[in-house]
């Protein structure tokens, strides 16, 4: 394995030197962010290569307005909030699901199926499933929406915060301040949508898009492939994760998403409103739509005072540049979602520290 790492590292070093400028590569996947830090990958890369953690952590990209909505729903005596664990510590208006737990009924689930089971087991209450995540988790939500419809489970509904990765990448590149040279594309999102889905980024914006797995060697080889392209002035689409990623993705998962959801304009933390970037339940599933059931209008809300998660998510700043980082905002007492989620950039920086970098 070491020879593979050495080979990739040499290629990156040589290409970085030949390019003679700072190169910014964005990973758009929280699991990549964590793996990069945990494996100390930054410490063996040249100083002129900057790895930016993009909008790839599902909890982090969720707009504050959505968080505030969940917290309002938690106050209802007739509801059970069913959520993936990452969400419960995200703060809003001085509260989080965790601190509301003393009075509110909040349950952590490991899958959408568990949330639907809660509804079957608690017919006297309405279970609101907090459905966040990208294309990887959206099909799991769609499956239970279909099951709930088939079984006519009336006390189950979904607060869809599902998001689509490619529109967010397009929005980032359309921003004038973006410094992104290439993308390390998410592995598991690609399992669902297929690596071919990133072709439009390559074609429309001329940025290399390389899908990589999550082991250290796979990430370094993914970076080496990006440098191979950058140094010869090419921008191509490539998957380096053939064990599970195909060009077209998982057809069954795509079909079930299409059956239940339709793309809609929606809000992202840091990125604002992006056209057709979120998944809303179709009219046929309106009775399971928590926004409709509780007559909630989606509106963006301000971030917590001083929190710069939005800029972190766009790759405009690194977490230590935020004045709250490590001071008033820590994993024990987080201010913004990037410090809450185990996949968040701030949490990774805090846990693994500022690694010594090699000289540029």
């Amino acid at each position, binding site marked *: 394995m070491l020879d593979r790492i050495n080979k990739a590292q040499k290629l990156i070093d040589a290409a970085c030197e030949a390019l003679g400028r700072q190169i910014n590569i964005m990973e758009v996947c929280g699991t990549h962010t964590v793996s990069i830090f945990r494996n100390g990958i930054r410490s063996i890369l040249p100083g002129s290569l900057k790895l930016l953690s993009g909008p790839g952590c599902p909890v982090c990209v969720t707009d504050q307005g959505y968080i505030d909505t969940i917290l309002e729903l938690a106050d209802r005596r007739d509801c059970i909030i069913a959520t993936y664990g990452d969400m419960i510590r995200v703060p809003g208006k001085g509260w989080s699901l965790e601190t509301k737990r003393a009075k509110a009924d909040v349950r952590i689930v490991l899958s959408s199926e*568990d949330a639907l089971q809660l509804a079957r087991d608690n017919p006297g209450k309405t279970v609101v499933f907090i459905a966040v995540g990208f294309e990887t988790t959206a099909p*799991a939500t769609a499956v239970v929406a279909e099951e709930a419809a088939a079984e006519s489970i009336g006390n189950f509904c979904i607060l869809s915060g599902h998001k689509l990765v490619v529109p967010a990448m397009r929005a980032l590149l359309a921003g004038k301040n973006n410094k992104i040279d290439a993308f390390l594309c998410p592995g598991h999102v690609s*399992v669902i949508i297929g690596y071919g889905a990133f072709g439009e980024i390559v074609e429309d914006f001329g940025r290399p898009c390389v899908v990589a797995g999550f082991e250290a060697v796979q990430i370094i080889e993914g970076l080496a492939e990006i440098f191979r392209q950058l140094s010869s002035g090419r921008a191509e689409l490539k998957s380096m994760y053939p064990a*599970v990623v195909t060009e077209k993705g*998982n057809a069954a998962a795509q079909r079930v998403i299409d059956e239940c959801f339709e793309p809609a304009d929606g809000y992202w933390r840091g990125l604002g409103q992006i056209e057709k970037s979120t998944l809303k339940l179709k009219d046929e599933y309106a009775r399971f739509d928590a926004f409709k059931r509780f007559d909630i209008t989606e509106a963006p809300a301000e971030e917590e005072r001083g929190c710069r998660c939005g800029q972190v998510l766009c790759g405009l700043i690194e977490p230590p540049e935020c004045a709250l980082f490590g001071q008033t905002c820590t994993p024990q007492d987080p201010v913004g979602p990037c410090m809450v989620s185990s996949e968040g950039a701030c949490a990774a920086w805090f846990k693994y520290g500022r690694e010594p970098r090699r000289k540029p």
Partner: protein
Amino acid sequence: MEADRAVVDAMGNRWKAKTTLLPEAKLGDLVLVHAGFAISLVDEEEARKTWQLLAEISEFEQTPNKVSG
């Protein structure tokens, strides 16, 4: 396996996963599971390479080669 669910085994830990998104899964297949759902078959040859890497890393970590001081 039964209907749309299966028991999956990850290095000795076993739990139930839904196979709705991977209808082609058969008993004995290697699968990738995300949030309780099998979402992809895993190429055995590629998976074997990854496991070999993990074993190498674990072996490396267990050798007394750490710099102390």
